[in-house]
């Protein structure tokens, strides 16, 4: 209890410190994490939707453009966009999970969590882990298409790929939490898809190589955290990196921490 009171006091002013110091409530984190997974498994429509969306992008676009477009010498277009389609599953899955906070807030369950004697930072961390897990599950489904896309997987590339998919999902979920924590109306929900998901996805290098693009586009690409996720996942699966892997991991990790801190600050300010 005393630990918690301290956490609350500190997290109000220095959220990042509280998160970094690990003054957290493991049971609360696990409960919120687990709940997201249970809910995901009870709503199979979300998974089916993700499978269909991924298959359409991968095969309709991948096979359609394959003849006329060789992005990188020695690599088919289907291979090239394979990690990009994984990234799409991740960003869709992550934001969908984060956005469920709005629903939880207005119609119930978030209140149950907010009046419980648990630190807000643990609520957000649990949500980040839950969202990242369900998004990674959707990414794994795409990974199963690898043989059809002509991508050769090895045990090492799969393990590395999963870790980087999870990290990318954490970054996307925490971004979603910053958006969702203060959002109270549902009207904004639809425009989010168009204003955040599609630009981030299309300007991440998921669909085309980034060499020789106009400067403004490169600026977007550099500022877009998803670019680093795409680069990292493509790197370990296909050996083709846009940036050094270390940079990708550092950017994704740093971005997640900043987003977590902002969402914590927003959540604490409430009332």
């Amino acid at each position, binding site marked *: 209890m005393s630990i918690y009171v301290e956490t609350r006091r500190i997290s109000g002013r220095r959220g990042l410190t509280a998160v970094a110091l690990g003054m957290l409530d493991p049971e*609360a984190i696990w409960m919120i994490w687990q709940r997201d997974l249970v809910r995901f498994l009870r709503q199979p429509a979300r998974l089916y939707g993700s499978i269909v969306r991924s298959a359409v992008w991968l095969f309709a676009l991948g096979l359609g453009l394959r003849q006329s477009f060789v992005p990188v010498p020695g690599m088919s277009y289907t291979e090239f966009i394979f990690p990009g389609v994984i990234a799409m599953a991740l960003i869709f899955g992550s934001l969908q999970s984060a956005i469920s906070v709005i629903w939880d807030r207005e119609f119930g369950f978030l209140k149950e969590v907010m009046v419980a*004697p648990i630190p807000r930072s643990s609520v957000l961390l649990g949500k980040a882990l839950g969202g990242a897990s369900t998004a990674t599950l959707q990414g794994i489904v795409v990974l199963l298409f690898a043989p059809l896309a002509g991508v050769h997987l090895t045990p090492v590339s799969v393990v590395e790929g999963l870790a980087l998919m999870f990290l990318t999902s954490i970054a996307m979920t925490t971004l979603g939490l910053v958006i969702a924590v203060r959002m109270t109306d549902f009207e904004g929900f639809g425009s989010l898809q168009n204003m955040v998901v599609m630009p981030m996805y299309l300007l991440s290098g998921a669909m085309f190589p980034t060499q020789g693009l106009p400067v403004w586009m490169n600026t977007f690409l550099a500022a877009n955290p998803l670019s680093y996720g795409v680069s990292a996942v493509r790197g370990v699966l296909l050996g083709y990196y846009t940036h050094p892997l270390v940079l990708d991991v550092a950017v994704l990790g740093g971005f997640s921490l900043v987003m977590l801190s902002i969402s914590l600050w927003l959540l604490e300010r409430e*009332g």
Partner: protein
Amino acid sequence: MAEVSVPLAVNGPIIRVEGLKKSFGEITAVDGVSFEVQPGEIFGFLGPNGAGKTTTIKMLCTLLRPTAGKATIDGHDVVTEAAAVRSGIGIVFQDSTLDEYLTAEQNLRYHAMIYHIPRSQREDRIKRMLELVDLADRRSDVVRTFSGGMKRRLEIARSLLHLPRVLFLDEPTIGLDPQTRHYVWEYLREMRRQQSITIFLTTHYMDEAENADRIAIIDYGRIIALDTPAALKRMVGGDLVTLSTADNQRARTEISGRLGVEKVVQADGYLTFEVESGESFIPRLVAALDVPVRTVSVRIPGLDDVFLRLTGKAIRDEDAGSTDRLKSRLRQRGRIRR
């Protein structure tokens, strides 16, 4: 009305509120309310929608920071000791806060996790709580399949799982049919008997407020009266006793002469007069009269009469905000079933 024996306040009031105020910009939702609640008491906030009831509950539950004033629960300040307050209270909100995709048992188990109920006691307590609210046979069913009354019962069970000292109920039976409301209150009284907790409730139903030991009537963010339901009703005036006898003329003389009632109205074959407490007056009346009594009835003023008298208006439904409108729309579509 509930029969109660309020336990002795050994450590003073369990809820203490002094000059509590909450403003949202220009609007003052709660305008300096003060009251105390004794341990074991059922304390009710009665008022129309928009009077500040929910805002007050949110401040007491640490969900909203007061603009001014002070509130303590079981000695803990709701602002500076929020964590201590939270672990000592249970809450049933106006709208369901259950996760409908989870089973009854899972909802309770998750609650146990975030309230840090010792692992060794969890399953046993969950089982007992589900039995108490008659949901033991539905423990593995997903909450979406429950009726409104069942969800309410499950929420009450959940709110009591961590053995809180104070239970907050925000409009606990809103939207439920009269029979279900009756059952919910039966469960609540049973819980109170077993766990000796303090209950703080808000309501805009007059008959629901009757369950409280004491009621604060709130309007436009201010408490305009605070007393037991019986005392509040006495403010309106006495009870009306109406009787018919074999000889009304003689009865009238006897009532005035023997019982000291000055004003007895005789009309349409009935005698009507006002006394302070009709129920205790009737035995005296019947014993005092030599004339055979045919019928006697007492009309006790209701809380709606009290509210009308205090505010000059009936309890009304204020314009709902956009969220409320959305909620009621969804409720109609069956998205939120209660």
